[in-house]
């Protein structure tokens, strides 16, 4: 059951268009949401409660991570 101000129609608008090129992975002890690109993965989101993790330039959203690392 949802308790939200967003109408149900908007929430479930694109139900069938799920992206399959997005993965969640743990790198160096931190959780990332990555989008697969040709030869690398692009960082979309970092899940961490440590504010210092967000200051690290290599973890910034938009940065890419090598295939080999994963």
């Amino acid at each position, binding site marked *: *059951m949802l308790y939200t101000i967003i109408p149900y129609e908007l929430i479930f608008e694109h139900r069938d268009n799920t992206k399959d090129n*997005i993965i969640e992975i743990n790198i160096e002890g931190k959780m990332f949401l990555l989008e697969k690109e040709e030869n690398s993965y692009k960082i979309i989101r970092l899940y961490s409660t440590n504010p210092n993790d967000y200051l690290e330039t290599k973890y910034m959203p938009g940065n890419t991570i090598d295939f080999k690392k994963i």
Partner: protein
Amino acid sequence: MNTFKNDDLPPQTNTAVQQNIQSFGQTNLPNFESSIHCLTIIGQIEGHLILPPQNKTTKYEHIIPQLVAIEENPQIKGLLILLNTVGGDVEAGLAIAEMISSLSKPTVSIVLGGGHSIGVPLAVSSNYSFIVPSATMTIHPIRMTGLVIGVPQTFDYFNKMQDRIVEFVIRNSRIKRDAFMNLMLKIGELANDVGTILVGKEAVDYGLIDEVGGVSEAINKLQQLIKEKENKR
């Protein structure tokens, strides 16, 4: 006058910094470990149902283990909760809220932008709550679209679900049940719905949130709570 000598610096950090500048053209980040962790709750709270990708979500299964880790880690002294949420799953929202309210470490929350619907129990779950002057909180009844079986039991079920939320908010804030129910069932405020929008200070006037303030006030309060807890020991 004291003159600062370069030799006073520990040689190891000096070379590490120099190496970094030489090879990457950048310096290391200051080696500072924060004793305050921050939990950002944004978009929809996602529970049992995976929401389509256009929704920005905060997932139950990410947050709960993080809260357990925060409770267990002796280096973390306090938790700051940043809220900008439009609501979401009732069970997941209440689960996260109960986890936050039962943490033994000091917790402070800030409502930034919005803390609507299930964001209300999340905002009040901390030891002390802040709202920035421009943030809003929408309080409205639970509703459902789609196929509903039209029997009195459905109404009872709705009431029960709503009561779980109301009970949690009353238990964790200074607002009285009557006042909260009045806000929830008010007509004439929202264009197509029953309920109320509270802006910044209004939430404090009703006793829902403790204080109007931003990051610096929240961090100060958190540090004060941490100190109080340490002194008690």
